[in-house]
């Protein structure tokens, strides 16, 4: 087991039982015992008042790989494109990537597939030193097989120490394949990435358990250290129109794919669903009560020039389409202003929106957890408040 109980120190107090999220602690003959359920999350270490629970020696057999770790130096960003245009999470990754590579004294590389030189130049202006450009038309549209093949090949050749990608439907789909193939670790949905001053390893912080806890993840013995980051979690870096860098053209052989995208169908909806780009989001939860409530939110969003969001409760009820969902299983947003209307504020929702600059909560229940993260709270009936607010905003704006 990764964690063991020093039996002589265990007092049998059972305090540790509660600290384990996996039911991995059992009591036998009055002493704690760690079973197969252990996920090595280490939460029980602090849970024992006697300090009887300790981590076992880190596996003696380090990766066969450990003497090659030093060959891996640079930071690489996978720059995702859609319809030939780089998507904004890629610029956010270049922002973090620039900071990390400066700290390491290394180069910042960007891998760009299925786009052209103008887009590659743009990546340089956003901070990349070198762009590994594969403009083959076979990569214009995303398919897991060729994307995995080409990225794994580039990583093997350029040996970056860190690889960052967006936690988008594309990144979340093929980056795990690349990590599996390269026999290395991948940390999902990071909210903070820092270099450990002593070891120079990447400290990757991410939420788990539906946002109820945060964990720091390390990948000390394998390279590259791979991480995904959700859109809008990191800030873009600095744009310098006169920055120069190198574009290296990568040729791929015959790109084969066992899957094929036949068509993309855009889901239409009254107001903008582009939650990532919106400055103002008006979101509704179970409190909106039905499609009529949704109409009311649309009107407020329209008056403000914003987009409509939803909590999972409102989506599960079928009142608002999934593409509007904000939260752990939906989108992460950080608009300037977020209206949470009739949203109770379950952590799963909060993780998706709590970095918004200003949060305005409207809810009947004064105890609703949403008020804990709200900049402004209104306890009241949204069916009274929102139409009034919409009317007054229209007046102010002369709409």
């Amino acid at each position: 087991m990764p964690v063991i109980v020093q039996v002589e120190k265990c007092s049998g107090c059972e305090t540790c039982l509660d600290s384990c999220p996996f039911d991995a602690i059992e009591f036998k003959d009055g002493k704690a015992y760690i079973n197969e359920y252990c996920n090595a999350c280490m939460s029980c270490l602090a849970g024992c008042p006697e300090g009887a629970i300790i981590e076992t020696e880190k596996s003696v057999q380090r990766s066969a790989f450990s003497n090659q770790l030093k060959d891996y130096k640079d930071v690489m960003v996978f720059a995702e494109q859609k319809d030939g245009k780089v998507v904004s999470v890629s610029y956010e990754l270049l922002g973090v990537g620039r900071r990390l590579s400066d700290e390491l004294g290394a180069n910042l590389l960007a891998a760009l597939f299925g786009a052209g030189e103008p887009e590659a130049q743009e990546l340089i202006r956003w901070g990349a030193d070198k762009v590994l450009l594969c403009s083959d038309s076979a990569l214009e549209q995303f398919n897991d097989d060729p994307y995995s093949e080409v990225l794994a090949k580039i990583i093997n050749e350029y040996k970056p120490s860190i690889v960052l990608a967006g936690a988008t439907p594309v990144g979340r789909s093929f980056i795990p394949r690349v990590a599996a193939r390269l026999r290395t670790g991948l940390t999902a949905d990071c909210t903070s990435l820092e270099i450990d001053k002593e070891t120079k390893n990447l400290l990757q912080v991410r939420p788990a358990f539906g946002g109820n806890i945060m964990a720091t993840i390390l990948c000390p013995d394998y390279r590259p250290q791979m991480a995904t980051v959700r859109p809008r979690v990191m800030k873009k870096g600095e744009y310098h129109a006169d920055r120069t860098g190198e574009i290296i053209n990568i040729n791929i052989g015959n790109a084969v794919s066992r899957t094929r995208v036949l068509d993309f169908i855009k889901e239409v909806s009254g107001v903008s669903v582009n939650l990532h780009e919106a400055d103002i989001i008006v979101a509704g939860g179970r409190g909106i009560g039905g499609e009529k409530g949704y109409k009311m939110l649309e009107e407020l969003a329209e008056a403000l020039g914003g987009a409509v969001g939803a909590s999972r409760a409102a989506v599960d009820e079928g009142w608002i389409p999934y593409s509007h969902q904000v939260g752990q299983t939906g989108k992460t947003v950080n608009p300037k202003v977020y209206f949470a209307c009739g949203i109770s504020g379950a952590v799963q929702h909060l993780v998706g929106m709590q970095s918004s600059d200003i949060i305005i909560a409207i809810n009947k229940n004064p105890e609703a957890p949403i008020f804990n993260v709200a900049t402004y709270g209104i306890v009241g009936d949204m069916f009274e408040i929102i139409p009034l607010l919409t009317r007054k905003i229209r007046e102010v704006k002369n709409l």
Partner: protein
Amino acid sequence: MNIIVCIKQVPDTAEIRINPETNTLMREGVPSIINPFDLHAIEAAIQIREQHGGKVVVLTMGPPQAETSLREAISMGADEAVLLSDRAFAGSDTWATSYTLAQAIKKLGADIVFCGKQAIDGDTAQVGPETAEFLNIPHISYIRKIEEVKDDYIKVERLMDEGYDIVESTLPVLLTVVRELNQPRMPSLKGKMAAKKAEIKKMGMADIEADENSLGLKGSPTQVKNIFAPEVKAERKIIEGTPDEQVDILIKELKEIRCL
């Protein structure tokens, strides 16, 4: 059609909190459940079997207690259940979990492998695609609809940011599913009887011919260094008054921050 559904037994995370003083999890009385996305995967597998014949095998890697989740899957209509359990598997990250599942799937054989989109505890959504890579088969993530299934072909809808893709693949394939796919059925009486009697097949390290250095904590490239409570910013400012007054104050604040 041989269908394998990978299911994970998870704590019901909606009920888990962290004690901000001690940074330990408080999980008293939190029930263990089948990962909610995996219920949709089980349902999808049963529907395919109903149309095309074959069998549905549920597979989980976990401690002996995970058997209850396997029996629950049988009560929904799965035909067989396999429990991958060995002390050597403890502490697996997604790499080692996927390697272990793939070794078992190779032994069992499958035309379609189903996974949930993500597990609600680890929350990585990585095990599906990584398992497909170890099996050297294609995968399609975030399936919201299955349009067509043939002996060596499948056509599905994949959820994307602002709509969906229509994707086709050869078989064998691994699919990860989202909630929109279907409504999982409730266990039937007959299912419950079957679940009681069903024999759970157990497999350990030797049965799947795994490389010991790729298993459990030893085989896992990532390590959890520590865990802590998420910070919440508490600048709560409650706007009081009649609805009219509340809205007026709000408008004033919105003007101040130049939102109006």
